[in-house]
């Protein structure tokens, strides 16, 4: 039995980063901000730890999501927070990554004046992400989406150069347009069903033209924010020109936030309006994204751009979820549910795997830029000698992205392949494996350069223009990378968490 009421802890996940943000605005000295950051991270870890420990396990009968009614007003009048396995997983992931990245940022921004602005924005972004994962209200989700979008844009703009600002502007406009599409859908849904609550909508939703229209608007808006091919154009530059910790969190969590919403709408809230053809369409886009992203990553000349394109590809994998949800005629309802559950588990694992690996990669790339002053792939010769830890991080994380065992990426791919084969959609198997191979080419292109003997390399990396990075920076990246490996060893924990059923 739960010792404490877990649900009452949920608002803390939003309040703590908000408080962190407020104090970061008020106290702008370097150490104060770092201290506040670390304290907030610690508090978040404590809270999410308490929640996870007390979460009813999948074996017990408590499989309804946790629910916290804010302000005491039940839906449809008020707003509720809710937590099921999927969102708990994403929240834990968020807290974990934020903790590591906070630690990393403390060093990354140590000498930069941008830190004054960075820390409050950072915590506001975190608050937005947490709020989105917890939200059970479609309008509230719009506000959280905007928080995330605006904070992310502000963070991208921190780089201050023209490329960064342009990328930020493009990102902002895309985000605003996406949000507006979403908001229009909210208007339509409210018009039809008279409620904004996830669960109530899910109960009322039926298949009618307005539902279709709403779903289409939501999907277009969120796909734009998630950067699924062909709406991915903004991502590489935004992710590629932001400061390293920002790139990391953008790739690892922010795109996942809108994907999370998509999953919520397609699997739960507007499930009746979903058709097989639509699912397949999303899948095809996902498949295209995998191949296109990988090819672009292969062609990228800058390291961070390559990593960003790899995100485009990885997002493609996430969208393979949708065709795998398709029902077939012979499958019974329970079979379908099991199939959907395993597909979701696979994709969740993908999210976790990609988040850790991509964050680690961006950290590694950040370290490289930090010490070299550039990230031109062609000029990375001999890196292995000078930055072994960062390179090692890059390699492990790369292994996970390729899907090599033992890594979370492998498990994710394994699960996804399993579902694909189970549902007789073998063409995804081909695409997934091809994607893995292309990713391998891209990653090993970098490693190849790094292993070239410095003596034979051109003199770009003469050790005198080499800036040593504080050891904590590569170490935090390595920690994430090792995490992806560790996650490759016991998948049960995460899969069990997913299995805690969301609301019907």
């Amino acid at each position: 039995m739960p010792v404490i009421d877990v649900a009452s802890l949920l608002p803390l996940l939003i309040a703590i980063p908000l408080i962190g943000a407020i104090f970061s605005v008020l106290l702008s000295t370097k150490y104060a901000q770092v201290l506040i950051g670390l304290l907030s991270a610690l508090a978040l870890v404590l809270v999410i730890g308490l929640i996870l420990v007390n979460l009813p396990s999948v074996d017990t009968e408590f499989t309804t999501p946790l629910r916290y009614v804010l302000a005491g007003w039940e839906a449809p009048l008020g707003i509720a927070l809710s937590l099921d396995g999927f969102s708990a997983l994403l929240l834990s992931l968020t807290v974990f990554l934020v903790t590591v990245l906070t630690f990393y940022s403390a060093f990354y921004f140590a000498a930069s004046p941008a830190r004054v602005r960075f820390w409050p924005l950072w915590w506001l972004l975190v608050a937005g992400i947490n709020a989105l994962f917890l939200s059970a209200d479609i309008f509230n989700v719009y506000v959280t989406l905007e928080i995330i979008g605006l904070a992310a844009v502000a963070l991208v703009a921190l780089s201050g150069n023209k490329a960064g600002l342009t990328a930020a502007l493009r990102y902002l406009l895309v985000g605003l347009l996406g949000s507006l599409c979403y908001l229009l859908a909210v208007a339509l849904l409210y018009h039809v069903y008279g409620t904004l609550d996830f669960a109530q909508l899910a109960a009322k939703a039926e298949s009618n033209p307005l539902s279709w229209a709403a779903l289409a608007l939501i999907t277009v808006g969120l796909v734009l924010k998630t950067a699924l091919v062909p709406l991915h154009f903004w991502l590489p530059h935004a992710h590629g020109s932001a400061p390293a910790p920002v790139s990391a969190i953008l790739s690892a969590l922010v795109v996942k936030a809108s994907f999370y919403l998509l999953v919520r709408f397609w699997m739960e809230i507007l499930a009746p309006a979903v058709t097989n053809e639509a699912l397949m369409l999303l899948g095809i886009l996902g498949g295209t994204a995998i191949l296109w992203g990988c090819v672009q990553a292969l062609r990228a000349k800058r390291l961070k751009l390559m990593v960003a394109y790899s995100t485009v590809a990885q997002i493609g994998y996430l969208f393979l979820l949708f065709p795998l949800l398709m029902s077939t005629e012979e499958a019974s309802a329970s079979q379908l549910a099991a199939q959907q559950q395993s597909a979701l588990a696979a994709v969740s694992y993908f999210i976790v795997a990609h988040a850790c690996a991509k964050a680690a990669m961006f950290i590694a790339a950040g370290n490289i830029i930090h010490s070299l002053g550039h990230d031109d792939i062609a000029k990375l010769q001999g890196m292995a000698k000078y930055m072994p830890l960062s390179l090692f991080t890059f390699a492990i994380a790369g292994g996970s992205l390729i899907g090599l065992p033992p890594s979370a990426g492998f498990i994710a791919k394994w699960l996804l392949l399993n579902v694909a084969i189970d549902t007789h959609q073998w063409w995804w198997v081909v695409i997934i494996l091809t994607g893995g191979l292309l990713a391998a080419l891209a990653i090993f292109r970098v490693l190849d350069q790094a292993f070239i003997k410095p003596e034979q390399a051109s003199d770009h990396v003469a050790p005198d223009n080499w800036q040593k990075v504080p050891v904590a920076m590569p170490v935090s990246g390595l920690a994430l990378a090792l995490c992806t490996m560790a996650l490759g060893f016991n998948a049960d924990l995460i899969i069990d968490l997913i299995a805690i059923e969301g609301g019907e």
Partner: protein
Amino acid sequence: MMWQSTLPLLILLSALVSGVAIFFVSDNKPILRKTLNFFGAGSCVGLILVMISGVYQGQVFETRLPLLPNMDLVLHADALSLLFVALSGFLWLLTTIYAIGYLEQSPNRSRFFGFFSLCVFATIGVALAGNLITFLIFYELLTLTTYPLVVHKGNKASLAAGRKYLIYTMLGGASLLAGVVWLKALAGSLDFTATGILASMPHLDPFHLKVIFALIIIGLGVKAALIPLHGWLPSAMAAPAPVSALLHAVAVVKAGAFGIVRVVYDVYGVEFAQELGLTIILAVMASVTIVYGSTRAVFQDDLKRRLAYSTVSQVSYIALGTAIAGPIATIGGIAHLVHQGLMKITMFFCAGSIAETLGVTKVSQMNGAGKRMPLTMLAFSLAVLGMIGIPPAAGFISKWYLGTGALEAGFYWVLGVLIISSLLNATYFLPILYAAWFKPQQGAWPKEKPKGRLETHWMLMLPPVVTALLALSAGLFADAQFSPLNWVKLIAAREYGSEFVSILAASSQQIPAMWLALGAPLLCALLLVRKQMQQVAHWFLPLSAGIALLAYAISGQGSNTTPWLFFGSVLTLNDTTSTFFLLAVSLWLLAAVFAVNFVKADERKVRFCLFFLLAMCGNFGLVLAQDISGFISFFTLMSLASYGLVVHFDTDEAHQAGKSYMQWAVLGELLLFTGLAGLAFGSIDPSLAGNPEQTYPAWVIGFLLAGFGVKAGLFGLHVWLPMAHPVAPVAASALLSGVMVKAGLLGWLKFIPFGEVAFATYGSVLVVLGLFAAFFGVLVGVTQDNPKALLAYSTMSQMGILIAAVGVGLKYPELWSLLLPAIVLYAVHHGLAKAALFLFAGMNSTLTWHKYRWVCWLAAALPAAALAGLPLTSGAVAKIALKDVVERDLLMGTVLPLTATGTTWLMMRFLQLIAQKQPKKVTGQPDVLQLGAYGTLLILVTVLSYLISQANGTWANHLTAASFWSSAWPVLLGLGIYFITRALPAGDINVAYTEAGSLVRLGAETLSQGLKLLKDEIENTSWQLPQRVVCRQARVVGLAMAAVRSLMTPGVLFALLLCMLLLAMIAAR
């Protein structure tokens, strides 16, 4: 118990932890790093030993960690995994030592050793994996951890190699992953079980299973370097030597091969796989790879690349063994996993040492390397001989089981593959040995390091020596309790649910002294390593022969049964072997005494002593050995060691003769291998017991006849004999013609079931060939002007008579009991007389003719007369004994007396040559030892034939006038012919062979020139795509032509013979 579930994990961790720790050690702290390294490797080996003892006691070790729903990460120690784990762990230790020595000054050592340990970690994981997904995980991990090692040097070549390696392995990995996931979806959890898991699931769609199998095999085939997935392996040679060693011997290629074994046996189940028709495809693939890899190896000049292609070929033996469904082939395949590992790692160690110490990387630079780095090259040679499959080395064991297994499964063509591969192995390996040992050094070494007290750093020397010795003992003590073979038998027993106990369970030693006879020469050979001993080496020869004689004297008849030696060794002294042994031991002793002073002064003393002693040991052993493996081992030892005696003088002629000798010897070995494998299979299969017709199929007999026929000088296969016998030092020639040539005869006597089955066709062929040789030898012999060459032809002629006699025995089994003593008697008579003649020919130039003219004439004429069969001589006794028996056969009975005519003619000619060559003036003292030895031999020639048991009574009835006349008239006739004819030009059938060979060569060259022209033509044209295709085709054809060219005459002959025998085999069925 806890430790049973943690031990596999601990073993893994021992490699992982040390690997990870090493990364953090700075390059400036070698001591710490070395300590860590050795600690890791040492504790790993220790833990493995603990586990082996545990498994031996029947404990189950399994670590199970949850990985996925319904899918655990399982580490399981069964017999098969232990085999691989033990191999990896142990070789890791050795390679670590080696790598420390090798990379002493190079940069990034911590990185290197870190990844190195991780690589071993992955390999151990592959070995211990208890289900397919665990296997997959470690398999992929292996790819990753190996990549940094391949590109370690950081130069262009290694980076290109790394890229190639990755592309291949990643593609393979993807295919494997697809296969595994699919299989998982169909069949659920994929835990390895001894008899396969899919067989028990009847509802699976066979088509799916076939596709999955293909996917998985493609995935595994990349690492196992199956054609056409092998491309990465030769380029990966850009890596440092320890990496190549590990890649080729243990980690990577073996992981692939091991995986194939796992999938076929423990996932599909071999019977089920066979039902699906999958094994045959795999077998064909493996066979093609074997032949292709060997063929490519022939053309590589870069030593490591040659070794790499050899690996491509050799690793497929494992796959082949797996694909041939059957317990025996399984044993062969899996045993090869260990054997090939030991041998190949030795080779790479040595190649690395040579490159590091001398800067030699090409085969063409290796001339004389044996002298500079004897121990290293010795280790290399042992490995090479094993790889070719020379018994009793480890490679032979694998091939033997593979061959027998193939017969068991009815895959006759596999034998052909094995033989072609062995032939190619010999083609590309033996020249290396030849260059290293027998060619003089040419100029300075490319990059020689200063020579210290040892030939190279001890860390570079120790590992190959250890592995070479292990490879040797793995073959030598194949049936010992803890040998790899025995362990593999256990695995096969579990796989097939049957038992394989050694045929000989109990050890019994009735004639223990005979071990002394075998041990003495070997021990003396070993003592030669010491410098002080080399001073007195010439005394070792008579000493060890004397010990053997002594041992013989105190032993009665009986057997030594030693189960742990070879496949269970049986040494027997019975009527026949006793007589042969007496012949052998007396001739070796006398020849040794005769040679003492010659050897003492010789510049290649040690080499001569070594080969002499080894040949002696082989000869004694083969006489005594009663079991197949023992016989063939000693037989081979003698054959190979004789090579050193043949080429002793290092003249062009000697090398030419040596080459021919070696080619034919290898050919003989291969024929024998086939025949004996058939024989062994016949005697193993219980369903055939008691039915000699089936136990001894005609083709087996054919191969045995041909195989031993090479040694016995059977006409058509005799070519080497007249070349090799004369060029050797006198004592050696005497032994070659006197006893060693009888080894073939002895082989027939031991392994062909005379008296039980009739093989009329073979019998007739033998009679015709034998009698033809008897006259042919005479006809060619009389044209020679070198007395030793003449004697060699005489040997051929005399052996012809013996062969014809054997042929009669084949035709008329009922005569055998009478024929056997006659043959033995004749053999003894010929051995003694021929040896005496050779010795005399050698002594000729030192004799003081002018003083003791008549004594000298008598000494020369006595053995000559005996050979001619002059009445009252041993020759007459032997001939009459033979004649009495063979009269049944019309041809033999008629022609046999006439042979004496020829022999007389030949002997007269010999005496004439001797007389021509008598020295006008002799300086110095005559050699007392030589005279003594010769004198003793003369006495033996005169009396021994009357004393041995086989002569009982024959000479009594020969003292009649009729028989007197019957043996006298041919001699007189011969004398007549001698006086009619005089000097004829020298020549032999070998000339014809050489001619034919050069014709073939000419044809091939013309063709390849034509192709080259064509290629040039095409290259000059402008079309892009088709040009490449045509070029490739032209290259392939060119290669084929070159292959034909390189095979030379024996090869062509061999192929013809093989075809004929196979035809015979098919016809007989």
